[in-house]
Structure formats: C-alpha cells, structure tokens
C-alpha cells in the first residue's frame, strides 16, 4: 500500500522535502519521478509502451516503407500484379508482403499510412478534449456558484447527446455543402473528424477536473496566494493547474484509444476520412465485401487497429496505477 500523500503533487514535493529530515541520506524525488519508477516496474505497461513507440515509428516513417517497397500509398497496380485477373485482391507475396486490396494497392504501405491518420486524430482529438475540458473544469470548480451551475448543465447536455448520430449529422450536411461558421469552413477530412471527436469527449475531462479543483480550492496556499493579491486566473494557472495535472494526464492516455476507435468507426461508416486516403476504418469497410476471397485484406487492418488500441489501453492502465494510485483501477 502506497501512502496516499505521495500520489498527488499538491502534498508531494514540498511536504516531502520537509519530512526528509536527514537530507544526506534520503534523496528527494518528485512525484513524477516516483510515478515513473512505479511505471517502469510494470512489465505489461512497458511492453505496451514499446508497442506504441513502434506504431509511432511506423507512422512517422511510412514514406520510408513506401520507398523501400517501391509502392506509393495510393498507387493502383493493374492485374495480374495488383489484383488477380478477376479483379480480386492478391494474397501476400514477396512483392506485396501483406497482399493487396481490391484496387491493387499495397496493403502494407496503406496500413503504415493509416497509422498516421489514427495516431494524428487520436492525439489531436484528445488534446482538444483535454484543453476544453480542463478550462471548463477549472473554471467551474474554482469560481463555483453560477459559473459552476451553468457549466454543469452544459456538461450534462454534452453527455446526453448521442455522439455517433451527431457526427453523422455533421458529415451528412458536409457531404452536400461545406458548413461555414464565420471564417471557419468545415469540409470532409481530418479537421472535422478531430473537431467532432474532441467536442464530444471533453465533458468527462471537465467533470474529473472540476472534482479535483473543488478539493484544492479550499487549501491554505490558495488562500495565501489570494491574500497576496494574485488574480483568479493566475491562481488557477500557477497554483491549481499543476495539482490537477496527474488525473488529466491519466485520463488523456485512456482517451487516446477511445478517440482512435471513434475515428475508425466514423471512417468505417463512411463519414470520416474521405477516400482515397489510407485509413484503417475505411480499409476494413472495403475489405468486408471480400472476407470470403481475401482474408488478409480484412485481417491485417483489423489487427493493426486492435494492437494499437490494446497497447494504449494497457499503457493507460499502467500510467493510472503509477501516477494516480488513489483512483482504483484494474489492478488494485
């Protein structure tokens, strides 16, 4: 059992250095260092971290993979090289390590490029959700009263709206004509997918942050800062934010796989990233018509998606256990 005071930065750094009476013997370690040390002992989380790094490298070096195979991500090879003479995908071979798709494109190269879309949307949508959620949560928790009431209702509304159907709504309008919001023009593509997923994910972040802020707001050092004449936003940014960073980071790592699945689901339904861009969700949608003739076309993109989300989930669980020991998780 870990003493609960270590988990939170608020009581961590300052309190620890005071308590560490013989400074020569005990080296002061920040809560982040302690968390990292705990994380490094978690074998499953470290394997997952390795997998995530490999996927990120594949995404970054997708053009290198394309150059090595000599196949561009959207290059369609005519039969019999790209497809069979009947127009069916070709099985994995020396030329195409993971086989080809229905249009005679290299699956390996497309999966590598698909990793770019998945990771980019996963990370950007999560960032958007965390930024909005943190601002709303900090404001609601710190200011309280009417601000809190209004923001709490907004969060309630966001959580009661069926995400996929609203994403479909936006996509359906955008497929007819671009949406103009002042100077912003929404068109099919990565941008709108990030905005849609981010918009529908921040409410949970806001709830978590608000709860943490409520506990911190009444601490003495906040009162001290206030009596020294610090402004509200200065207190929020300098004194409150660093102390709610741990739960934010923990939730963000668990939000990335959810965002990746959301992006793949939208693209699977045909309302995400438009073709011909390589994307795991739309590849799986195309492949489902060929599951009888070409298993590789369906199986490899599915595997890529499952491995990615599983790795992020295992890593997220590990980070939660390491940095936020008080939130009871899968391993207690």
């Amino acid at each position, binding site marked *: 059992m870990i003493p609960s005071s270590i988990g939170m930065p608020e009581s961590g750094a300052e309190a620890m250095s005071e308590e560490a009476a013989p400074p020569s013997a005990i080296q002061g370690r920040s809560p982040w260092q302690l968390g990292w040390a705990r994380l490094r002992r978690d074998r499953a989380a470290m394997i997952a971290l390795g997998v995530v790094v490999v996927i990120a490298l594949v995404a970054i070096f997708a053009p290198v993979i394309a150059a090595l195979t000599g196949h561009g991500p959207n290059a369609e090879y005519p039969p019999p090289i790209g497809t069979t003479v009947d127009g069916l995908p070709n099985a994995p071979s020396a030329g195409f390590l993971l086989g080809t798709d229905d249009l005679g494109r290299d699956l390996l190269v497309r999966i590598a490029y698909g990793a770019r879309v998945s990771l980019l949307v996963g990370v950007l949508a999560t960032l958007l959700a965390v930024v909005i959620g943190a601002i709303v949560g900090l404001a609601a928790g710190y200011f309280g009263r009417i601000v809190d009431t209004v923001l709490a*209702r907004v969060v309630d509304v966001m959580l*009661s709206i069926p995400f996929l*159907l609203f994403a479909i709504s936006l996509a359906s309008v955008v497929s007819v*004509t671009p949406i103009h919001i002042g100077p912003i023009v929404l068109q099919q593509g990565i941008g709108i997918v990030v905005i849609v997923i981010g918009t529908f994910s921040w409410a949970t972040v806001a709830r978590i942050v608000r709860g943490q802020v409520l506990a911190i707001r009444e601490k003495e050092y906040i009162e001290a800062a206030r009596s020294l004449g610090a402004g509200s936003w200065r207190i929020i940014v300098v004194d409150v934010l660093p102390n709610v960073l741990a739960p934010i980071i923990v939730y963000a790592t668990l939000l990335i796989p959810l965002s990746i699945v959301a992006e793949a689901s939208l693209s699977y339904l045909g309302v995400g990233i438009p073709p011909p861009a390589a994307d795991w969700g739309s590849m799986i949608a195309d492949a489902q018509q060929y599951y009888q003739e070409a298993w590789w076309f369906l199986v490899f993109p599915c595997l890529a998606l499952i491995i990615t989300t599983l790795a992020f989930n295992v890593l997220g669980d590990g980070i939660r256990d390491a940095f936020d020991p008080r939130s009871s998780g*899968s391993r207690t």
Partner: protein
Amino acid sequence: MIRFLFRRILLGAFVMFCVTVIVYLIFYVGPGPGYVARALAGREAPPQTVALIAHRLLLDRPWYVQYWHFLLQLLHGDLGYDYYHGQSVNSIIAQAFPVTLSLTLGAAVIWLVIGVLSGVASAVKPRSLLDRSATFVALIFYSMPTFVLGLLMIELLYYQLTIHGLHWFPGAGYTPPSQSLFEWFRGLILPWLTLALVSAAAYTRLTRAAMLDVLGEDYIRTARAKGLSESRVVFRHALRAALTPVVTQFGIDVGTLLGGAVITENVFGLPGLGYTAVQAISDQDLPVIIGVVIVASAAVVVANLVVDLFYAVLDPRVRLH
C-alpha cells in the same frame, strides 16, 4: 420526492431543447442561406421539390420564425417529411425502431449478466488466476472496436461454419418476430453477442472496481463477523451497494443504443435506426437523419430519467440533493 422528480424532468426538457437548437444550427444554418432547402431535398431533387421545401419550412422568414415553426412541429410529434422517399419520417422511424429495440434489449440482458458476474468473480478473489484472465479478456474486448468484433463473428461463426455445412446463423438481415419467432431469434444471436461482448467488458471493469471498494467497507466485515455465508455477503450486502455505478452506466448505454446501435446494425445489415441514418447519408436524405437524432436524444433523456427514478425509489439519500 415530487420536487426531485420535477427537477429531473425539467433538466430532461432542457437537454431536449438544446438538442433541437443544435439540430437547427447544423441542418438549417450550417449549409448557409440558399442551400438549406437543397440540402434537405435529397439527392438529385427536382427544383420544384426544393422550392416546395423552402416554402413549407418558411425558409424565407427570419431565423426565429423558422426555429419556432420547427419546434412547434416537433412538439406536435411530427418529425418531418422525407422528400427522397416520399414518406413521413415518423413512419420510417416506426419501421426501424422495433429492430433497434430487439437488438438492444437482447444484448443488454447478455452483457449485464456476463459483465456483472465476471466482475464479481474477479473482485471476490483479486489477483487470482480467474481475476487475471477475466481482466485480460475484458481488456481485449474493451479495446476491440465493435465493427472489428462483428466482422470476426461473421467470418468465423457465419462464413466458416457455413462453408463447412453448418447453417447455424444467417449472415445478415432481420426477420420480424411476427413472421417467425425462431428466425428472429436466430438472426439476432450474432449481433447480440457482438454488442454484448463489447459492452460487457466495460461492465466487468466497472463491477470489479466498485466491488473491490465495497468489499473493503466495515459493514462487510460486520456481516462476515455475524456469521453470514460468503455468498450472502457478496450478493446481498456487497453487490447491492456496488451496483450503483453499474446502473447509471446501464441506463446511459441502453438509452444511447435505443437511438440506434449504429455500428452493429450496419455490420449485420439490420434495418434499425442507426442503419437507416447511415443509409440516409448516401441518399443525402437529411430529414431522416434529423428524425433519428431527435428520437435518439429523447431515448437518452428518458433512460436517464428512468435511472434517476430507480435511484430515488432504491436509495432515499438521492432525493436530498
């Protein structure tokens, strides 16, 4: 009690109001002036239809008149007219809803049983082999997108069985129970399992965490000290308290799915609300999508109300705040 209920109903009405505003913004403002009627008319609509829509929806009037007209129609239970199919949206939704209902309720029973039982089994003996395997399996299904699991089901349990001569499950489609109860059941087994397994994983994790918290409480120790049997302690004393977060999640999930189990319906070609909405995209048949969104949001609001009501009856403390 009455005050509590009144406040929850008011909140529900407020949520529905916000939904109509968002829908109005997306569909009536988003396309930009001059394109709204075009967007609502459906693919390749003749100019007469477009003009008719502009006239019927008062598109030449100011926004507040338009919105009021839109809201008033909804309050009368009129979800609009599908110009692409020449049918009222109400009748399209009435056809699709029983499919979604069959899918959701069947799956809900399965995932609740699997999720809660495996969660309890894990929590009773934490760190045991059973716990570790249950947690691991739950994590895999939790990480698996619904459509991936659905397609795996089709490949393994439909295609592989069928080519080996076992015609256990149909590949896709829906048979109404009025036509054949057996075919209805047979056709829904794979979709039920898909939806249930993906959802059950979250319930395993939720139940396990809640049970671990509750099992550490003093009153559990007291119950054991009184000499109650372990199964009575676990199921009567602990599970009852641990079910609170599970019930909340269950209400939200069932509500959301009643508005269309979008992915599962599309993988298995079940013509429910979610399938209808996705089909409507390629026909650019926007009035249907508006109708589904409104019905789906209403389903979530009603489900939340039912959960609140359930708590208020079950746990008197809830009524106080």
